[in-house]
């Protein structure tokens, strides 16, 4: 049985249709890379999965939980969100919380874990990303790379079924990209299910076992990294890949 199944997801903003009936099915342990041109709806799709955006229609199934996007209750929203975590392009750490508190917050208020247990877990996560000495620092006192690794620690601490990544490296200085990519790669090897929107083709090749090519609110292609990235059949994908490789 699939871990996550999304069917016929549609979403428009002020009469502009941004997602035109997207389907996706992924299994436990999958690492799915989403690539595609700017404005094609990748971020909107990701945020629809954990209902940060409210889709107009479609259905979602996560394990045994099922919901209809056109009539989601607040309780359903909460339930889905508490099984999924997200890492943001601009890190989006809580500005008024320390590195440690950024991790405990979700445990305490999103998972009903006691403060002591949450602190223990957060310390473990901080140690895992080598930032234990930064536990009392506020986000503004940390580099982009450090912030993003805390963003990742905040997500993994929640033991989510799935972690959503929206371009986790694209706001980072080039020399910091490597450490964040390594962290995500480590998660992948530990069997964490993830959906990663990225422009880094080398990264997609390295961590993903499935690749989705998005265009204009549709999934244009879905397959293995070899199929999509190394031997693309579709002209649009070929164009996109060669345009991207010129940039780098």
């Amino acid at each position, binding site marked *: 049985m699939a871990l996550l199944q999304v069917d016929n997801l549609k979403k428009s903003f002020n009469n502009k249709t941004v997602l035109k009936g997207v389907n996706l099915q992924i299994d436990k342990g999958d690492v799915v890379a989403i690539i595609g041109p700017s404005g094609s709806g990748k971020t909107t799709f990701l*945020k629809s999965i*954990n209902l*940060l955006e409210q889709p107009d229609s479609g259905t979602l199934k996560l394990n045994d939980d099922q919901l209809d996007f056109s009539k989601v209750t607040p309780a359903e929203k*909460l339930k889905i*969100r*508490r099984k*999924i*975590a*997200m890492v*943001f392009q*601009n890190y*989006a*750490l*809580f*500005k*008024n*919380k320390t590195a440690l508190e950024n991790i405990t*917050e*979700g445990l305490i*208020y*999103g*998972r009903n874990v006691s403060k002591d247990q949450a602190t223990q877990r957060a310390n473990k996560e901080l140690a895992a990303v080598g930032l234990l000495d930064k536990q009392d620092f*506020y*986000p*503004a006192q940390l580099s982009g790379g450090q912030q993003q690794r805390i963003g990742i620690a*905040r997500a993994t601490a*929640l033991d989510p079924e799935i972690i959503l990544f929206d371009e986790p490296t694209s706001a980072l200085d080039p020399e910091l990209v490597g450490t964040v990519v390594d962290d995500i790669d480590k998660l992948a090897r530990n069997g964490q299910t993830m959906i990663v929107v990225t422009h880094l083709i080398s990264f997609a090749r390295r961590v993903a076992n499935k690749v989705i090519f998005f265009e204009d609110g549709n999934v244009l292609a879905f397959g293995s990294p070899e199929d999509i990235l190394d031997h693309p059949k579709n002209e649009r994908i070929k164009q996109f890949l060669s345009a991207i490789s010129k940039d780098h």
Partner: protein
Amino acid sequence: MNLFVIIKSLLAGLPNTVLILVISFLLSSIIGLLVMWISLQDDRVSRGVARLYTGLSRGTPPLLMLLLSYYELPKLLQFVGINAQDWSKNLFAIFGLAVGFGGYMGEVFRAAFESVDQSQFEAAYAVGMQRKDVLKEIILPQVFQIALPNIQNMFLDFLKASSLVYVIGISDMYRNATNLANVHQGVFQLQIFIVLGLIYWLITIFFEYLFKLYIKKNTYI
């Protein structure tokens, strides 16, 4: 007349001044938060109510607010069966100032709320927090921090406006200064009001210092 007498006589009004200042300021902050909350609702009626109050409160001179509060509010209360004849004048002063400045406070908080980064909401919802916790833990602390410089300015406006409570007969420092000057047929008026100015100035410095301490302790940006 010796300086000591002047200071002693003015300081007799200090408790009233500080009491009215601090309590009306706190009350007005609460009103401001409420107004912010109402003005952020989706329905038009709520937003309209918030806008109307904000307009009225900002368009009414503090002096008039105090007079309305002292002379008209008891009649209004009488109307609903509450006898407010014996209530302390301080109460009406506090009410008048708080309601009079509540519109400004609402604007300060609303502007701060709107400048909180959208991603802060998203990140908080994404970790599975409920709306009330998102507001309490993440958003309102940031609203306060953003609003703080403006709140500090508002506080100084309060301090100045609090010297107007003499119009409803409260013995604050300002009224004591006027009385003292009158008793001496205005001969010492200049000295008395210079001393009054100095006392206000010291109060300002004291509260600015408190704000500075608070800001230093609560800054994370």
